[in-house]
């Protein structure tokens, strides 16, 4: 057999190897950086680890805050008493204490029945979007709500209600349906403003919605941190 064929097939092989290496490299990198890749268990694990870390730190913050308020309550003499009352009111306003009172419990869920009967339809029409909750919360605030929580997350001045992919973030915590919105305030007024607004819209879109008045709605405290690094109080002359 002649040696002529050896050279040409070797050239072809070298270039093929080059191509193969390029392609393999790209594919390998692809799996690592694509956040939607199911193979990417690494990122999921990091997120889960961070979430448990946040949870433990939040618990620690709560513990320290309780200790602080206990210590403050012991100092109830003379002029300090008035300051204590102010501090207490401020803490309630900031959402740092669990509160209870008359109010409403509103639950919203995805329209699972509707999706079951129309499986070909766009599922976006049947899931609860963050805008619905945002609108509802705004209406509750107009109705004089004193404290609001969504699935156990207390809404404070820094709270967000945000859509990230297929979940909703409240206080940077992922929440999932069914959504339970607890609110303290005048039950009659709150019920009126929501049933003539967002709740009515949701009902007309066939979402399972329920509204329940309660004499004792318990709303948990905000567990996250509240740090103000940039804001400073303006001095009044």
């Amino acid at each position, binding site marked *: 057999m002649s040696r002529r*064929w050896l050279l040409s097939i*070797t050239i*072809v092989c070298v270039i093929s190897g080059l191509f193969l290496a390029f392609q393999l490299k790209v594919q390998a990198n692809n799996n690592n950086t694509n956040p939607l890749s199911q193979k990417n268990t690494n990122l999921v694990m990091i997120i889960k680890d961070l979430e448990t870390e946040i949870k433990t730190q939040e618990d620690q913050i709560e513990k320290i805050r309780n200790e602080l308020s206990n210590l403050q309550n012991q100092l109830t003499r003379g002029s300090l008493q008035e300051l204590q009352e102010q501090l207490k009111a401020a803490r309630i306003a900031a959402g740092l204490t669990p509160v209870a009172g008359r109010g409403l419990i509103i639950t919203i869920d995805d329209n699972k029945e509707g999706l079951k009967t129309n499986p070909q339809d766009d599922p976006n029409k049947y899931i609860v979007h963050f805008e619905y909750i945002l609108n509802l919360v705004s209406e509750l605030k107009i109705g004089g709500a004193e404290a609001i929580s969504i699935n156990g997350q207390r809404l404070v001045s820094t709270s967000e209600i945000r859509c990230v992919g297929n979940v909703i973030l409240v206080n940077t915590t992922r929440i999932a349906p069914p959504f339970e919105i607890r609110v303290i305030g005048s039950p009659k007024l709150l019920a009126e403003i929501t049933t003539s607004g967002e709740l009515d819209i949701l009902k007309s879109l066939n979402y399972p919605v329920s509204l329940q008045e309660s004499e004792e709605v318990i709303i948990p405290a905000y567990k996250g941190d509240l740090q103000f690094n940039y804001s400073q109080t303006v001095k009044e002359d």
Partner: protein
Amino acid sequence: MWLLPILGLIIGAVIGSAITFQVPLIYVKYMSIAVLASLDSVFGGIRAILEDHFDGTVLLTGFFTNTLLAALLAYLGDRLGVDLYYAAVFAFGVRLFHNLATIRHALLLRYRQKKYQEPR
């Protein structure tokens, strides 16, 4: 004799992974077609050697035109909104398997002939 092409393949792969150059993500699709076309050429060449009608020029020109044209056609198809990509994958895929089958047949035939001739 067979060692040199295999060595070439390994050398190519080593060079490819050593170079930091990376194909931009938008061209990965066309690169994958080029890879398929080049593999097809390699197996086509092996088949031609076994069937004793190997021609170096045919192999080399076929290799370069096939890979380039495949990638270009896939690109053109994307511009035109026709998925020529799948046509190329299908064509090269079918040919690859056909070549592999022929190589297997040829090797088996040689092995049997040798075995048959040995006792004499």
